[in-house]
């Protein structure tokens, strides 16, 4: 009786852990393959343990150039998209004006459009306009599909904010600029940081839109795609594992810092 009751209470957790296992299975494979010495270039099976790939991640220099290029593109696209999107989010959350609903549709549509359609339509534009495809067309495309995500993320933070804090600052004779810099910006900053991280990860990992607009420029996903046809060097898995580790550490560090701050606030004043 007791066991069946416990099962009724907790079976959902069991299923959830299984699903999480499913989500992590390929990550484990990527990590394992980063320590693999493949038997042949086209083999995806585990053969022999080695540390060589980690000691020498840039054995294929094209790959490291592609990673660097992806970081550059991601950085540029993130900066532009975060600035444009944050400013738009402020206008949408704080002001009423004509054409608001039309603008909301314009921001929503890129998120609801298949990436394939965005990629092909931009290609049609660039080709008919005679724009040479390459580094900058990729940046333009990435900014385009990142902006909407930035707007949505920052706007969510802005609308969840307590407006009375700003009113209080104004009541205490803070000027508009001072209120913005000392009250509004610090409160919105977590939202802006989250939006920037989202934009970077969207840009860094994008394949479909990039594939149509890159010309001969090779980003990291483009490199992996090309290599998949002729045999993937095991170092690709080193980059994949390292990326995973760095991102995980970043997220855990911010959540720990958040928890520490929250804990500090809860403590009663001496």
């Amino acid at each position: 009786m007791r066991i069946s009751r416990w099962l009724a209470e907790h079976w959902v957790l069991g299923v959830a852990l299984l699903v999480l296992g499913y989500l992590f299975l390929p990550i484990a494979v990527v990590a394992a393959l980063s320590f693999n010495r493949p038997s042949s270039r086209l083999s995806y099976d585990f053969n022999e343990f080695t540390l060589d790939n980690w000691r020498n991640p840039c054995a294929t220099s094209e790959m490291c150039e592609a990673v660097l290029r992806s970081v550059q593109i991601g950085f540029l696209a993130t900066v532009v998209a975060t600035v444009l999107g944050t400013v738009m989010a402020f206008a949408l959350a704080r002001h009423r004006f004509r054409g608001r609903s039309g603008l909301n549709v314009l921001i929503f549509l890129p998120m609801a459009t298949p990436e394939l359609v965005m990629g092909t339509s931009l290609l049609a534009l660039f080709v008919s306009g005679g724009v040479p495809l390459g580094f900058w067309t990729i940046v333009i495309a990435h900014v385009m599909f990142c902006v909407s995500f930035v707007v949505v993320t920052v706007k969510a933070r802005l609308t969840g904010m307590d407006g009375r804090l700003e009113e209080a600052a104004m009541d205490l004779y803070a000027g508009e600029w001072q209120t913005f810099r000392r009250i509004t910006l610090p409160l919105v900053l977590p939202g802006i940081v989250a939006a920037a991280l989202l934009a970077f990860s969207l840009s860094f990992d994008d394949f479909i839109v990039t594939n149509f607009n890159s010309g001969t420029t090779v980003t990291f996903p483009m490199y992996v795609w090309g290599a998949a046809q002729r045999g993937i060097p095991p170092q690709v898995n080193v980059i994949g594992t390292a990326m995973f580790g760095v991102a995980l550490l970043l997220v855990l560090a911010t959540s720990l810092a958040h928890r520490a701050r929250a804990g500090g606030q809860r403590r009663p004043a001496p």
Partner: protein
Amino acid sequence: MSAPAHVPTASGEQPASPAPAARPGRHRFLPYLLLLPGAAWLFLFFVVPLVQLAAASLYDPAGSLSTGYALTWSFDNYPAALQAYWPQFGRSFWYAGIALVLALLMGYPLAYAIAQKAGRWKHLLLVCVIAPMFTSFLLRTLAWKTILSDNGWLVGLLRDVHLLGPDGRLLATPVAVVLGLTYNFLPFLVLPLYASLERLDRRLLEASSDLYASPLKTFRRVTLPLSMPGLTAGTLLFFIPATGDYLNAELLGTPNEYMIGNVIDSAFLVRLDYPQGAALSFLLMSAILAVVFGYLRNAGTRDVL
């Protein structure tokens, strides 16, 4: 937004919603200034290209990239493209639909467990849902190629328990493609669902069971209706990219599993048949929009059992 003269001065008006604070009249141009760069970017690089693509879909199919295209309003491109590629079209929606059902079966319990049962492990488990996305999409899909490969442990196990015949395989079958789709877009389903279920008031569930509703009935009459917004958002966030995807079919399938995305990709990048590629892109987009709006209409009004 090109007519700032019509802007109502915020100070004289009562805003319809409480969120936007009243601003002095001298800020009447400010929202337009703030919006201009971003809106211009989206207009130039999202709206204009779509119009360009629409024009391209009506080009004379006899033209080519080197000789140039003439806009001849050849609406015939659409039926011709559909006729040539309807199997791939149907397959896209079929595969994405099965993957969606699988993802719901896995994603709902996961989102529910994190939101309602995980207690202080909530945030850690949420990070675990997002974490797989830290590794490149392509690498994860290639990892599935390893897992499903003919001499991998999974195929061996399934052969031993006779779920697969001695020559049965997983890789290069529809099963692999659907599994890949389910895997790659599952987090997009789980996150909005979690957001909805997290706000679910547990007292409502207790009230339901106090009133002698069985757990199943509580789920159907309380939990499921209250999680509808997240379920709707998650379903769309899953279904839209899954239908347009072609990487899973390319990496885990064979040309027999190709979806419409593979056809569009090769129309633009291999065969250089822009009119056909553009027509197929628009067919894909309008089909998705039709499914989305049909679904939204039903999800809004349907009494959930």
